């Protein structure tokens, strides 16, 4: 292959890859994200079967998923899953858990107060802050309109 055709080929690859990558990424995210939600459904149904109250099913399901994801993060498995699944591993609640456990382990060497204690909220902090702010805004509007 001469130099020119190599360059042209490179250009063609660059042109073609973003879209095919996007589609492939989306399929991976769809499958893994969908599977995580399925596992959530299995856990919900199990708790329901064993007679836990309807109101608390969500709490138990999230708790179990958060625990599993935290353990997988510790073992180094979640980052491998993340490399494959992209948003499929970020968007479910397990991604929230990973975003808390991962910096907690990572910054352990900086001590338990300013390392683990502070960095544990490096991503969860913004999520909680803006989540609570939005919930207050929703609450105020709901209160006025009620």
């Amino acid at each position, binding site marked *: 292959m001469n130099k020119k055709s190599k360059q042209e080929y490179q250009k063609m690859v660059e042109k073609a890859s973003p879209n095919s990558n996007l589609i492939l990424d989306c399929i991976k995210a769809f499958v893994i994200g969908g599977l995580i*939600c*399925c596992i959530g*459904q299995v856990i919900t149904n199990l708790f329901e079967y064993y007679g836990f109250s309807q109101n608390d099913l969500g709490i138990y399901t999230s708790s179990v998923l958060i625990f599993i994801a935290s353990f997988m993060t510790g073992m180094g498995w979640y980052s491998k899953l993340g490399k494959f699944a992209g948003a499929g591993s970020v968007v479910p609640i397990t991604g929230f858990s990973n975003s808390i456990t991962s910096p907690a382990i990572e910054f*352990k060497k900086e001590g338990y107060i300013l390392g683990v204690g502070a960095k544990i909220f490096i*991503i969860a902090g913004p999520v909680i802050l803006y989540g609570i702010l939005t919930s207050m805004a929703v609450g105020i509007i709901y209160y006025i309109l009620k």
Partner: protein
Amino acid sequence: MDYLKAFIVGGLICVIGQILIDKTKLTSARILVLFVVSGCILGGLGLYEPLVRFANAGATVPLPGFGYALAKGVMNEIDTSGITGILTGGLKASAAGITVAIVCGFLASLIFNPKEK
């Protein structure tokens, strides 16, 4: 059927996230914030509830479900305890999730060491 609905709806919400990551170069932290805030707004407008009824875990496991829980919590709290609910509803609704997540994170930091890169 439960599982198929959860799979499809949950998968599709993740696809939205994937498109945002690939097309806008948003970091995953921003995606998390964006999804929780959108879920909360949709929950407040009553638009997320039907999705939860249809797909159950498919709608509650992804992060917009967390936002939805915040909105629902604040509205329930206002119904039961009046104006104070504006201040207490959000954190009350998310209390279990946040507590479990930070306790697990802390325990993991005791047990595990950072992996060699």
